[in-house]
């Protein structure tokens, strides 16, 4: 099924829920390809780039951000209803993002502590990925997403094929890139062995450990990694923090899957 067959130009829409805009910026960052892209799709809704919006339905909707308010929970259904293909972009839309740390805390207490008029704040107790609310056609990971992968997803959509987005570990990319492993050669804790590839193993290439911004890979063995993090100097609190950053609920779920008897990642 070629999305571009027929005479009509496919429409692209970009929506934002609770997020920092970094993933949408990645689209604007595709400078060299933007012209070609603009020639191939009609950008019907992309507030970051233009305030002119065309009504749906849209052939491809990219959704950034997580669901944190009752309004967003409704909106995401409207977006789904208007989109032939819905692709989430980034850790927020795909796993709840950094703001999902609230899932482990008391949001009412935050509200009372932080805001002078807490009653102005209308928020949900949790930050959840788009897939918790509606069906999603593809989830692109990363905080932020990788621009080559975004182009691959859009290009694949235009060609009517499956995007080539491998779900193996970051270590694959790290070795392909020829980086010296920071764990083995320097004793630096690294989440690469359990993290979804996609960034090209950016952090280890600059001498620091992967901090898991692409979330869990397709094959996670957290109980095998945690003793290594401990060995490399992380105590329990540091380990929990390490795993509870951009994709906390996703790593928690991966931890439960790899050892069902345990709760959470670092117990």
């Amino acid at each position, binding site marked *: 099924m070629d999305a571009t067959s027929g005479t009509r130009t496919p429409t692209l829409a970009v929506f934002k829920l609770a997020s920092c805009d970094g993933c949408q910026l990645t689209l604007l960052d595709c400078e060299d390809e933007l012209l070609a892209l603009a020639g191939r799709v009609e950008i019907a809704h992309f507030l970051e780039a233009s305030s002119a919006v065309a009504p749906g339905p849209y052939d491809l909707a990219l959704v950034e951000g997580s669901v944190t308010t009752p309004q967003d929970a409704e909106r995401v259904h409207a977006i789904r209803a208007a989109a032939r293909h819905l692709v989430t972009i980034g850790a927020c839309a795909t796993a709840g993002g950094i703001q999902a740390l609230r899932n482990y805390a008391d949001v009412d207490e935050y509200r009372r502590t932080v805001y002078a008029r807490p009653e102005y704040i209308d928020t949900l107790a949790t930050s959840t990925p788009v897939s918790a609310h509606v069906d999603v056609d593809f989830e692109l990971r990363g905080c932020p997403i990788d621009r080559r992968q975004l182009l691959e997803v*859009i290009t694949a959509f235009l*060609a009517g094929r499956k995007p080539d987005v491998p779900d193996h570990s970051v*270590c694959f990319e790290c070795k392909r890139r*020829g980086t010296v492993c920071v764990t083995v*050669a320097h004793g630096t804790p*690294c989440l690469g*062995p359990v993290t979804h590839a996609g960034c090209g193993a950016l952090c280890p290439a600059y001498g620091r450990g992967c901090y898991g911004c692409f979330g869990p890979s397709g094959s996670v*063995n957290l109980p*095998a990694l945690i003793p290594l993090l401990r060995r490399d100097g992380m105590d329990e609190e540091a380990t929990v923090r390490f795993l509870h950053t951009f994709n906390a609920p996703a790593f928690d779920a991966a931890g439960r899957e790899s050892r069902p008897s345990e709760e959470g990642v670092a117990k």
Partner: protein
Amino acid sequence: MTVTDAEVTAVLDRDGLDALVTVLRSDGRTVIGPTVRDGAIVLAELSSAAELPYGWGVELDAGRYRLVPCEDGAAFAHSAGPQSWKNCLHPQRERLWSADRAPDGEVTFTEEEAATPSYAFLGVRPCDLRAIAVQDRVLTGGRHADTGYGRRRRGALLIAAECTAPGATCFCVSAGGGPAADTGYDLALTEVVDEDGHRFFARAGSEAGRRLLDRIPHRSADLATEVTARTSVDAARDRMGRSLPPVDLRALLGESLDADRWDDVAERCLTCGNCTMVCPTCFCTTTEEVTDLTGDHSERWQRWDSCFDLDFSHLHEGPVRSSGRSRYRQWLTHKLSTWYDQFGGSGCVGCGRCITWCPAGIDITEEVAALHAEHEATSVGHETAAAAHGTERWTETER
């Protein structure tokens, strides 16, 4: 490569080694050799022999690599770096062909004809000479040769560095090799550092090696240097850091498909794929189709893959090897057993890279020893049971 009647030998000093790199470069060769980068001895293009890791050794263990100064100032006092020569000969990503669609709909295909560098590899360890021979067999030996590999390989000049200081994760002797370069090299160097100075005992292994020796300053080999060189390589045979059990590994692995040990190692294995990426014989690739936004240009690329990737065994409905157990077992069984069935030999040369560069420190020699112990402990009972039930012991069970 011509085998010579009388072995041509010589002794080079450090200036001779400098000249060697200069001559190779002036011949238009890309000289690749060991050099220090990011706290490790990596393989990279050398612009001069001064970039060799003079004075650096390595301290190795399972899952651990540390660069340490070595007092004698040797250039080749290291082993098991994070890369191997396959990074050059069998690169991690390579375009195979591209296709273009003209406005009239006509599609043309273009085979990739990338410029092939003329490599000279300086400091190839004997285990890696064997690993190159293994990959030659795999990638060019069958009906479907990898032409890119073949081109790069044919043009490559191999200068070996024999081992006098094996690493703690080395086990080439028990893998059927040894620290001496026997065959497959153009020039073999043995580094000697003693009261008579820092020098390299050189042996030509081919016509190209002999011609190369002629062009660089050297002296004829004196007996003392030759004896010291040969004795220290011999002595290295007994200083292997590790060893595989001296049993028929092909049979052991073939008979261990249902071993409990696989569950034990699967608990520790991250399925991260590092072992296969660093292994100098692992050759697996996948293909990737790259299209551009216009849809009129498409390219096929080949990139390294690994049996630890779930996608690697993906058939309809999902991966055949979904558990960590089945993927680790695939890796080890392929290396030591089914490789014989496929390519007539072992897939492991005992370089120790998979041990050193496994973040979890999983040690192939330890796993094989445990499988052997389990096999010994259970084989009597097994055989009786198998005979009693008339069962086939080579059943592959997926857990």
